């Protein structure tokens, strides 16, 4: 696949959106609330017009290939190297960008002077060693979420980040998704009133398995299913939604309780296929998180519940609690019509079940809003991933660190790991003091 000169630049819409957000909300004041976007403006884009970030993909499985396809549409990016120790994945990636040099040992790849930035899309247990090695080798680094497999590894990455001048990004694509940016700015402006609760869920119906050519490759290919290489549903799915929850609340939960089980996919896996967690914020607000992978009816969603309304961020829509009544003249006509034309009632309304009122949705963004069912194991279209990768490539060229992305990923990953601890130990777990960082308040 080659870049087409006529291909629409992947992030132009977002940059224009950010520009519009600035104009509507009074200039730079709005961008202060989303600091990671401050350098992602049309002016900055014009500064790097003729330059290209030379990037390497470390881990060329499905997610790595997903990023390759995005990178091929970004004018200021060039894929110069690919690395994977699983030959079929390396070949598939090489077919997408044949000019890139291939490696099977990532340490050798990091020695190359022709690479400016590294994009890490490997199993979770490899995130920490690869991020630390990449930063030590002087490479700007992007790592897929979650940050790392253990709390100590997360802390080590954060410490390295504080002491490096290299750029570090993590795959928290909702930070670059217009729907979330606009929706959360509306929440923060008071549209739905005080936040009184948050409900998150992610339901799928598949076994999360990839085909395994031979048994000894089981733990390598299906790494998501084993605790030695995965945090399960929390680090793979919940991390995004917990990040959104913190973004909405502008604080981090103090504690978590939860339960996890293997309910349906009893196939030798270790991680839970059904989890239910409750995160407790100091002001009493709770975020509930539910996920299971044997029923997809409810799809995925984040509902921010305010005392004046509800925002469904994934769907890009919101509802008000109090719906204005119909005009008096219409109510009069309706009642007259009912009296004239309705049949004789046999029973009164006492048997009618009480139902939530049907309210008209309002939309965060007018026009087509991209939503996802959450069923893809690779990545959704237009979910902010392309904008995020573009921003990383821009940072690789300019050397400008993006604000708060590392902190957002650190916080949400820590919450995932604490959630796993709560489920395994069957007790309430508090956020440990030794892992708190000066970012969001509790």
């Amino acid at each position: 696949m080659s870049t087409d000169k006529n291909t629409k630049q992947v992030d132009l819409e977002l940059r224009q959106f950010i520009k519009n957000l600035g104009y509507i909300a009074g200039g730079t004041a709005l961008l202060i609330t989303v600091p990671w976007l401050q350098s992602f403006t049309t002016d900055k884009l014009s500064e790097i017009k003729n330059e290209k970030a030379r990037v390497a993909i470390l881990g060329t499985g499905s997610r790595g290939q997903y990023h390759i396809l995005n990178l091929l549409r970004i004018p200021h990016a060039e894929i110069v190297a690919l690395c994977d120790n699983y030959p079929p994945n390396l070949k598939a990636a090489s077919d997408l960008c044949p000019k890139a040099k291939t490696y099977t040992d990532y340490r050798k790849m990091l020695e190359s002077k022709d690479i400016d930035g590294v994009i890490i899309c490997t199993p979770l247990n490899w995130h920490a060693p690869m991020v630390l090695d990449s930063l030590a080798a002087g490479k700007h680094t992007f790592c897929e979420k979650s940050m790392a497999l253990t709390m100590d590894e997360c802390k080590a990455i954060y410490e390295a980040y504080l002491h490096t001048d290299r750029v570090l990004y993590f795959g928290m694509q909702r930070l670059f998704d217009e729907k979330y940016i606009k929706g959360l700015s509306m929440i923060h402006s008071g549209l739905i009133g005080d936040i009184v609760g948050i409900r998150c869920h992610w339901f799928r119906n598949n076994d999360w398995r990839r085909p395994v050519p031979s048994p000894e490759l089981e733990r390598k290919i299906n790494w998501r299913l084993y605790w030695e290489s995965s945090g399960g549903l929390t680090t793979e799915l919940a991390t995004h939604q917990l990040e959104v929850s913190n973004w909405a609340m502008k604080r981090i939960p103090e504690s978590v309780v939860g339960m996890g089980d293997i309910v349906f996919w009893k196939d030798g896996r270790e991680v839970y296929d059904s989890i239910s967690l409750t995160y407790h914020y100091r002001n009493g607000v709770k975020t509930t998180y539910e996920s299971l992978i044997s029923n997809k009816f409810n799809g995925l969603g984040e509902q921010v519940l305010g005392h004046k309304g509800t925002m469904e961020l994934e769907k890009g829509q919101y509802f008000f609690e109090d719906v204005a009544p119909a005009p008096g003249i219409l109510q009069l006509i309706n009642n007259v019509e009912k009296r004239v034309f309705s049949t004789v009632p046999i029973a009164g309304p006492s048997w009618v079940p009480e139902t939530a009122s049907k309210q008209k949705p309002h939309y965060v963004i007018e026009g087509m809003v991209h939503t996802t069912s959450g069923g893809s194991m690779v990545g959704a279209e237009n979910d902010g991933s392309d904008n995020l990768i573009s921003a990383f490539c821009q940072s690789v060229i300019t050397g400008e660190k993006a604000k708060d992305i590392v902190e957002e990923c650190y916080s949400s990953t820590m919450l995932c790991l604490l959630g796993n601890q709560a489920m395994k130990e069957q007790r309430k777990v508090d956020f440990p003091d030794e892992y708190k960082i000066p970012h969001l308040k509790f």
Partner: protein
Amino acid sequence: MKDIVITVRRQKKELRILLICFAFSFLLNIAAIIIYKTSWAEIITQIGYVIIIALALYVLIAIIRLIVYLISRFFKKRK
């Protein structure tokens, strides 16, 4: 085919009936605002429905008048 002449007298009569229908609809709107405790702004905002109801009433009255006219003409002929 004859020329149809609508006299000034006829026009005034029809306009009066239409105005009465409009007044009735207008008062109906006010009554609805009071009964259902909605906003007084609906005097203006629901003027479209008031006009539609007025026209519907006018047509209904016109049909009734036509029926009455046809019946009275039938009995006059019989005499």
